[in-house]
């Protein structure tokens, strides 16, 4: 054991000192933090006021559009002002309120483009729509983001609206305008049919509230909050982390085994330690690397959810309390360890057969394909953690660690946890035994990796 530990310690020290490992540990929290904060920040910075023009032959609809744009801006400004007021109350130092930027701004059609018919105007406006010419918005020159061409209106809108823009993926404006037009036309129709405006609005406001209740919870506390719903989805993140950690560690294991084999270090090692000690040492060393990495990630995940979630902190706080509990973390650690041993011993055996990383990568692709299954099943399993798919996959050893982790927040039955752990332990033992045999025969082998038949013969030796 002393010798296995020494092998393991060297393995650990070598990987921990690599740049890749350090970068991996630092990069994860940075990306996570950025994931929480950057989108909001980017939106704030990049969302500039977008200018658009309207061609409206009947002259009736432009006002509707203007009103809708103004109302939309007013709503978001009110919300922001409210948030600012609360902030100001808590901290009198908060700087004065700055009104929200307008998202959209209607501009008049440039005089030089105006023509007698809409078709001609559209044709004339092409240079603006393509960004070759700019329109004036207040003091600034801006690109014309969109052109909305209204049909002639006789009672109803028979023809549709034309929406011209080089950016059709950002549908904020078109949706806003379309909703405004629909409301307007409906209201008109209601009025024509003699239905009172107030009545229409009252009816439109009817909605049914759904309160989610969980029968497993204590009487009087059955309400299910947003955080609790998120809890069911949270394991997806962990499964993904485990997948990434496993892949990183597997690569390390494979490359270090291939290096030792290619440089014939194995021969000296095997004159000092048994193949079993060597394998055990390597597994321990690399497992320690994986655990350090996961631990670092979990700590940073915890810290970011706790202190730096920004706009998501409402959900993040309660979520922490629900996920970072022994009933989730302990099975998770067990499944991770067993899953790691299962795959690591397999990769160690494969690595011992290869002389180059290239050869090793050929073996990796089928392993990767197997690993993709639990990854693809992640969403369906989280949606129905105790459904047939989840239950079946749980009992297939290569998938067990991932799928069970995936389900853990869905509180699977105790016998399922116990049973799958027993099955997994047995599979790990079997895999270690097989890997030991391949490893023993493989490490000193020279030449190309063996064919299946040779591999089977090796297992018998």
């Amino acid at each position, binding site marked *: 054991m002393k010798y296995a530990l020494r*092998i393991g310690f060297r393995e650990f020290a070598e990987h921990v000192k690599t740049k890749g490992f350090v970068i991996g540990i630092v990069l994860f929290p940075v990306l996570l933090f950025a994931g929480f904060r950057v989108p909001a920040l980017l939106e704030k910075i990049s969302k500039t006021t977008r200018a658009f023009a309207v061609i409206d032959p009947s002259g009736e609809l432009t006002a509707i559009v203007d009103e809708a744009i103004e109302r939309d801006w007013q709503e978001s400004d009110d919300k922001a002002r409210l948030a600012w007021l609360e902030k100001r109350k808590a901290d009198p130092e908060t700087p004065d309120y700055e009104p929200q930027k307008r998202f959209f701004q209607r501009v008049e059609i440039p005089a030089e483009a105006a023509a007698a018919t809409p078709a001609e105007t559209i044709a004339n406006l092409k240079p603006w729509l393509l960004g070759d010419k700019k329109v004036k918005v207040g003091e600034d020159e801006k690109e014309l983001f969109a052109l909305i061409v209204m049909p002639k209106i006789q009672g109803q809108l028979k023809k549709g609206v034309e929406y011209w823009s080089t950016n059709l993926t950002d549908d904020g404006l078109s949706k806003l305008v379309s909703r405004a037009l629909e409301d307007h036309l409906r209201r008109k129709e209601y009025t024509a049919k003699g239905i009172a405006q107030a009545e229409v609005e009252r009816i439109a406001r009817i909605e049914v509230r759904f309160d989610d209740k969980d029968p497993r919870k204590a009487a009087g506390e059955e309400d299910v909050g947003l955080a609790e719903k998120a809890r069911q989805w949270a394991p997806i993140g962990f499964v993904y982390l485990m997948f990434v950690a496993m892949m990183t560690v597997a690569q390390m294991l494979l490359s270090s085994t291939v290096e030792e084999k*290619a*440089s*014939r270090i194995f021969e*000296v*090692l095997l004159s000092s330690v048994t193949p079993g000690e060597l394998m055990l040492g390597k597994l321990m060393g690399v497992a320690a690397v994986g655990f350090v990495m996961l631990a670092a990630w979990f700590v940073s995940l915890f810290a970011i959810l706790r202190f730096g979630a920004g706009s998501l902190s409402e959900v993040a706080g309660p979520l922490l309390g629900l996920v970072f509990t022994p009933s989730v973390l302990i099975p998770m650690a067990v499944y991770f360890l067993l899953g790691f041993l299962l795959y690591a011993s397999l990769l160690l055996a494969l690595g011992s057969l290869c002389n180059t990383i290239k050869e090793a990568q050929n073996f990796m692709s089928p392993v990767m394909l197997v690993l993709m299954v639990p990854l693809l099943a992640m969403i369906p399993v989280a949606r129905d953690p105790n459904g047939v798919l989840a239950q079946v996959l749980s009992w297939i050893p290569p998938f067990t660690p991932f799928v069970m982790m995936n389900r853990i927040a869905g509180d699977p039955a105790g016998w399922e946890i116990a049973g799958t752990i027993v099955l997994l332990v047995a599979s790990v033992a079997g895999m270690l035994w097989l890997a030991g045999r391949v490893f023993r025969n493989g490490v000193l082998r020279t030449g190309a990796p063996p064919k299946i038949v040779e591999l089977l013969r090796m297992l018998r030796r």
Partner: protein
Amino acid sequence: MTDLALRLARVTKKFDTFTAVDDLSLSVPFGCVYGFLGPNGAGKTTTIRMSLSIYEPTSGTVEILGHRSALDVRQQIGYLPEEKGLYKKMKAKELIAFFGGLRGMDPAEARREAVRLLERYGLGEFVNTRCEALSKGMGQKVQVLASVVHKPKFVILDEPFSGLDPVNQQVLEQVIQDLRAAGTTIVFSTHIMEHAERLCDRIVLIGRGKRLFDGTIPEAKRSIPSCVRIHTVSDPSPLRAVRGVTDILRLEGAGHYDVVLAEGAQPDEVLRTCFRSGIELSSFERREPGLRDVFLKLVGGEEAAA
């Protein structure tokens, strides 16, 4: 307890249908420097691996320092494999200490000893250099030191001289001489006969997995006849009549011959006959057989018989 450091008794190793070592027996007494000689593919490395319990023999028994498994006495054994490999990212000192640790040394002591050895053999300035930055020769020296850092009783070196320049070969010879002076039993394999001749007390010659010769170097030399090498423009065939001359071999280059003598035959009779028969000599040299000749004769005969 036996007085043999290594004993192989009728050892055979087969890989599938290929027999790498065939019914080999040999004994390495304590305190001697023992050479494993033989052409490439003779089974030297396989024999060494079996001695170290890296391979199990197919049949026969191996006993090293009185034990059936080398792992039982790993603290007392040092091993340098034929193919030299180092952990590229480790520093020279750490690497030597790591291998010392695997041989049971205390880590701190192993580091101290590593530094001492590096300084002793001219690598003092590379103590903290990563192995990837060492030249091939330096790396090989580091590996030799890694195999003896724990002061083993028994050292096995597989082709230790291959790939070393003459200066480093000398350093390595010094390492071996130092080990010998400390009473260490040494087995090393080589196909460079000069090293074996200079360093070995005993040799075993292996060909195609079989033992061809086992004994001291004088014994080995006595096993083949001595000869006289002459250079002449004349026809040397009259020398065949001389008593004790068994053969005349034509060498490369015009006029060069080896006159092979039977055991105990004197070369002066050959010289006299040259004068009598009017054979014009431009050189006449008595040649004692070297290990190289033994090697060529025994291995060549084996190859021809195959």
